[in-house]
């Protein structure tokens, strides 16, 4: 039901939501109207066929009141990946300057809260904000655009190479209970620029809330953006995230999505290869158990010639969990010499676990090489037997092989600290022991 949000939107507009440059309230209003008209998606919607958002739709998540946080850096320590990195920390949707540090970037690289840039460079923001993440058919994106609170803008000028990753950490605690958080991210990497970004979503307590994130990424000609997303929301939380990317000539966009948290999560990564020679690498790993549901959707739109796309998504499902992968590769008639490859693998650990996968190809050009492969199965009995015959106990052997399955996806992570961190987390989850 979107109706209860009408009142919220009015209150929000009257109280701060209406601030900013004059175009902003108009954009919010248009987005809200669209959200209201669309309503939440249903399983009759082809894009949501395997994921029911009823648990989200039947609740009304409230706007969170600003509240001072009592969290300290030591509370966040396990989630920082590397304490030396530049970082922006948001607690329950609000930027916490005291927990953030982002002063050591090259002077011409802008990393700032959205609110700050809206004040300082409203015209520049206007040209980008909402230009990629259309909300005409996407209710959650419309909802984010209407309600987005503070977000992050990262602008890397022409030729600038930022060699230390930037971390955006969203944490929630018990104060997020019942609330909705709509983070927004805008990355513009101008020609030949390079930057690595890690977005983490971490639930510290077992609160139930909705995170509805939208990211827009412009990868300029010859630029490279490495974009990692770590989703470890509270087990009672709902997470919907959409990343919309446009890529220029000879650009590289490398994305990795890790999903281990939330009760229901949906992660969309959409990229448009608009310039010749571009390359998109979309990878991901989801590890689920209990009654968790995680849905990953990718859409690679090959518009220009001679672009390549590579996708590898792996899922490990235990308990009664339900994994969904829906990947589409579209090749425009102009996009000759497209080279697309998509792989999706799922490992089912328990009899009640379920997976639905829909790897699609839509090809309108003849000189292309596109493949996809999907496998679903359980642990290979021969491999298990092999390990056991070498004296490894059944339990450990199973855990080890599960870890090995997940490791294939983790190996695509190019930031060592992050890869080691996730490897450790995954290993501990399956083996209940320490990775040495």
């Amino acid at each position, binding site marked *: 039901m979107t109706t209860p949000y009408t009142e919220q939107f009015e209150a929000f507009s009257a109280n701060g939501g209406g601030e900013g440059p004059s175009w902003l309230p108009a954009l919010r209003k248009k987005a809200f109207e669209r959200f209201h008209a669309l309503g939440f998606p249903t399983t009759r919607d082809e894009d949501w066929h395997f994921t029911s958002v009823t648990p989200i739709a039947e609740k009304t998540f409230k706007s969170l009141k600003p509240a001072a946080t009592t969290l300290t850096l030591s509370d966040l320590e396990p989630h920082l990946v590397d304490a030396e990195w530049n970082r922006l920390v948001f607690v329950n949707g609000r930027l916490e300057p005291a927990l953030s540090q982002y002063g050591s970037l090259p002077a011409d690289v802008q990393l700032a809260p959205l609110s700050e840039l809206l004040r300082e460079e409203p015209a520049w923001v206007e040209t980008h904000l909402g230009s990629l993440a259309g909300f005409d058919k996407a209710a959650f994106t419309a909802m984010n655009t209407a309600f987005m609170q503070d977000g992050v803008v990262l602008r890397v000028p022409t030729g600038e190479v930022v060699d230390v990753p930037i971390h955006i950490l969203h944490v929630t605690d018990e104060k997020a209970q019942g609330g909705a958080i709509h983070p927004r991210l805008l990355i513009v990497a101008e020609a030949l620029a390079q930057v690595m970004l890690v977005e983490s979503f971490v639930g510290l307590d077992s609160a139930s809330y909705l995170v509805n994130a939208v990211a827009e990424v412009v990868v300029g000609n010859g630029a490279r953006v490495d974009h990692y997303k770590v989703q470890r929301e509270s087990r009672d939380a709902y997470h919907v995230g959409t990343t919309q990317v446009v890529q220029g000539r000879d650009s590289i966009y490398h994305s990795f999505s890790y999903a281990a948290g939330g009760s229901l999560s949906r992660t969309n990564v959409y990229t448009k290869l608009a310039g010749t020679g571009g390359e998109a690498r979309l990878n991901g790993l989801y590890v689920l158990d209990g009654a968790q549901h995680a849905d990953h959707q990718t859409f690679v739109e090959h518009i220009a010639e001679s672009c390549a796309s590579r996708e590898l998504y792996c899922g490990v499902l235990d308990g009664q969990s339900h994994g969904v992968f829906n990947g589409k590769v579209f090749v425009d008639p102009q996009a000759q010499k497209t080279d697309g490859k998509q792989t999706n693998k799922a490992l*089912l650990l328990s*009899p*009640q*676990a379920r997976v639905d996968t*829909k790897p699609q190809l839509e*090809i309108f050009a003849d000189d292309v090489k596109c493949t996809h*492969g*999907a*496998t679903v199965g359980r642990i290979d009995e021969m491999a298990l037997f092999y390990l056991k015959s070498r004296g490894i106990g059944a339990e450990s052997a199973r855990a080890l092989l599960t870890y090995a399955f997940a490791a294939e996806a983790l190996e695509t992570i190019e930031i060592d600290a992050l890869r080691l961190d996730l490897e450790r987390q995954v290993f501990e989850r399956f083996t209940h022991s320490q990775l040495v």
Partner: protein
Amino acid sequence: MSSSIEALVNKEYAYGFVTDVESDTIPVGLTEDTVRLISAKKNEPQWLLDWRLKAFRRWQSMTEPHWSNVSYPPIDYQAQTYYSAPKSVKPLQSLADVDPELLKTYEKLGISLTEQKRLNGIAVDAIFDSVSVGTTMKTELEKVGVIFCSFGEAVQHHPELVQKYLGSVVPYSDNFFAALNSAVFSDGSFVYVPKGVKCPLELSTYFRINAANTGQFERTLIVADEGASVSYLEGCTAPKRDENQLHAAVVEIIALDRSSVKYSTVQNWYAGDKNGVGGIYNFVTKRGKAMTDAKISWTQVETGSAITWKYPSVILQGDNSVGEFYSVAVVNGMQQADTGTKMIHIGRNTKSTIISKGISAGKGQNSYRGQVKVLPKAEGARNYTQCDSMLIGNACGAHTFPYIEIANNTATLEHEASTSKIGEDQIFYCKARGLNAEHAISLIVAGFCKEVFKELPMEFALEAQQLLGISLEGSVG
């Protein structure tokens, strides 16, 4: 595109002639009275009329499905004729009485119904518009207890079998076109193979649409009793006409324990001209149910029709049952095909294989749509899917929409798909060995489709291969 490829793809449809026979055609339009009229003409028992009427009422409450990747102008169901039969065909007559004009039609299609010229080892049922004009080799089949006759005849002579199995796999409420078919189906083939009998002949049905503005709604029912086996082939052609004609058939297969049914289709309905005028709308529901240790295998070579919408499926009901789907679909000109299969794994240790080869040329759009569903109780289910697409020229499209739904962790599933074009290097290599471009392309395409062709009964593999050569004619340039 080289001119040789172009030339290869644009060959004339060879079966586009019209037979001049006097027909008994009912008025256009579709009401309950139409349904009653068809049933009366076929002298049907009350239960069948009742079933038709239930289907008709259900159909009226349904809407035409539009989720497939095809587009066409709205169909006016009231502007069609739902029954047309050559006047000379009286029910249950012997082959000797068949109108020579009709025999000639089938001769022209390469099918001889007369005893002396018939194909060796193949029994043929010939369906002309709405009715069967004759079935060959009936006595040979009767010796082993195999029933092979027109659907209408089966209703008269084996009503208990028809009543038991009709609608048991594809209920009248299944989908819009199946409901329509259930209400107005006119004829089709019926096969029953008794317990333990291996049918000694290939059974085959040739469908021919002749009359204008007439839809063809045939119904085929194949029952293989325990331990029986049968191989069945259907072929389809239609005259060239400027209007689109609707063909909404239903095929049901029941494979009881340990039986095996192989169903092959060579579909070459008129595809319309190169501008997309005319051609058959081929909206077909085909489904089989395989019981314990039974096997159902679908093989299709789809080269005709303006639009193809069909998903021959297998419900793997019994433990250890096997389902197979081998498909070659070719689109050229303005043709659109949305075809694939559904494999529903219910029983334990059920196994399915899907091999789909799509070839797109001209402005054709080819979609593979397939579902593999493993239900929670289907322990040890296995599926292997391979769908490959080949594009010839840059105005066509190839699309792949697999739906994989796994709810049992002992299931093993492997799905592979690829899209490629005929390599210039492959053509040059063949040319450097003395083959011309047409020859090179038909060779490369035949190689691409080999895994499917080898599943066809021998007699038809060659025919299918030639058909493919014809359908691609002119596609290369």
